[in-house]
């Protein structure tokens, strides 16, 4: 029996991959197998969710070295008779996806936000043209590497039937030396989980004005976020608050967009919000067209009035 293999170095994302793998495996009468690399805790978590887990313990397989992880997973695919591999489409997963696909001679899609099995084909949705469109695509062939956007699927619940077996893989010595890993401190923003986002764009006059915007975010019970130029060009906010194609894709209940013009590379990260409010002094700004409530006004004045009204 052929199979589908999942792998992510992140425990939570691996549980999400199990959900997607289940959809595909059920349609084909396949088994879901999971590779865990140097991560005994993840073996337990995935086995508790009903997966057949293969534990790889080999210090030469470093998550930092996509080339060696790809070699390890290729061996796992061969030994476990798997033709489809699901990865998480976070940065590590996306880097690995291309390398693994090349090693396997597989087709590859990344940043997949929805999956539907249609007969022999696995139809995947992903953004295209910088987010202006959503494409439905599939890989024409047996060997497939599919990388799934974090949080697009719920983590798999606990289920019986899981198991853990050891799997030996041989990899060449790593050509990457990990010198240091500095974890983000836990106080850093998690804009993807926030129920409300107040998002500043290039209409903001100065870095000093951020304080009032942040205060508004707090009053609304949310987080401060920004468009890409505010972080990468102006350096007013850290990269982990950027919304957009190469930033984060968020689905808050409420998004308040301040001084944002509405280029697709930005809107692709926020268009799934339940309610969108846009404030922009330019009445022709595209953002007004994708808002539920829009105000043609100076954002600084509106932020001040909102802060007063919500005090």
């Amino acid at each position, binding site marked *: 029996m052929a199979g589908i293999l999942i792998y992510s170095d992140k425990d939570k994302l691996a549980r999400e991959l199990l959900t997607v793998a289940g959809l595909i495996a059920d349609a084909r009468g396949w088994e879901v197998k999971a590779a865990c690399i140097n991560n005994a805790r993840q073996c337990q978590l995935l086995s508790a969710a009903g997966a057949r887990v293969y534990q790889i313990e080999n210090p030469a397989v470093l998550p930092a070295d996509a080339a060696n992880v790809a070699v390890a997973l290729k061996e796992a695919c061969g030994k476990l008779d798997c033709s489809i591999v699901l990865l998480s489409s976070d940065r590590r997963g996306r880097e690995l996806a291309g390398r693994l696909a090349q090693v396997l001679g597989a087709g*590859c899609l990344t940043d997949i936000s929805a999956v539907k099995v249609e007969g022999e084909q696995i139809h995947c949705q992903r953004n*295209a043209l910088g987010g202006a469109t959503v494409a439905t695509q599939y890989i024409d062939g047996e060997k497939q590497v599919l990388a799934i956007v974090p949080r697009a699927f719920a983590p798999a619940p606990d289920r019986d039937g899981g198991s853990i077996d050891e799997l030996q893989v041989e990899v060449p010595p790593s050509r990457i030396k990990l010198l240091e890993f500095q974890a983000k401190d836990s106080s850093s923003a998690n804009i993807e989980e926030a129920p409300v986002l107040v998002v500043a764009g290039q209409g903001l006059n100065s870095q000093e004005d951020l304080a009032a915007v942040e205060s508004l975010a707090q009053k609304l019970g949310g987080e401060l976020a920004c468009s890409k130029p505010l972080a990468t060009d102006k350096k007013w906010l850290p990269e982990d608050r950027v919304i957009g194609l190469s930033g984060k894709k968020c689905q808050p209940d409420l998004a308040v967009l301040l001084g944002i013009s509405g280029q697709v590379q930005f809107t692709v990260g926020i268009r799934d919000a339940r309610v969108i409010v846009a404030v922009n002094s330019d009445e022709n700004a595209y953002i007004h067209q994708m808002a539920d409530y829009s105000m043609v006004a100076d954002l600084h004045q509106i932020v001040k009035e909102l802060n007063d009204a919500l005090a």
Partner: protein
Amino acid sequence: MNVVVAMKQIPDLQQIRIRNRQPVLEDIPWTMGAIDKNALEAAVQIKEAQGGKVVLLSAGNEELEDTAKEALAAGADEALLIIDDKLDEMGSAEIAKILAAAIQRIEKIDLIIFGEGSGDNYSGQVGSRVAEILGLPQVGYASAIEVQGESLRVSRSLEDGKELVEIGLPAVITVISGINEPRIASVTQILKAGKKPKEILDLSDLALDLGEICPVKTESNLAPESDRKRVAVKSVDELVAALKGENLIGR
């Protein structure tokens, strides 16, 4: 140090219009992907510090010769361009084989730099695939690159932290946009760009073996449907009332 920068020619995304949910691509000018410009800047900075040259590598349709000028003006020393209108229809797997075959024609390459993802498709596969085809180590999502003799120290930015790694040369690196601010070419540089050396190949010039490829097929490609209320709000009081009505404040 000789550095290859791979850049992708894409339609100018800010000029794409949507008609009946279909993207309209006729008469849209072509440009280089935004993050690719950061890759070029990173390469030029390394060359300025270490000596050597920067080779621009790109594959695309007949507009490419023109599009490549902006990269030559912004600091690339020479260009290797693969021009063929069939390239627009090709996926990441095919393009990676083409770029790798072209890189193998260049003598003594120490480093190959890509942007972390293209401006249009943002799939992020090609850099990793090229690294595998050429048998090179890779580090993705670089936020800083420091040359130390025959190796690099690369800081990479991940969702959960920052990593510092050492990687031997030759190697493939992909960069994030935060790594630098691309320079804007001066008028003199733009004028000189046309005179920089260029080698132009078509697909038949490359000894290509596309081999086993499971191609990506596109069923549909449509703008998402939007059903926003689009209520024009005149005052903050009105906005607060509306948000209360949505049960979004005063919960």
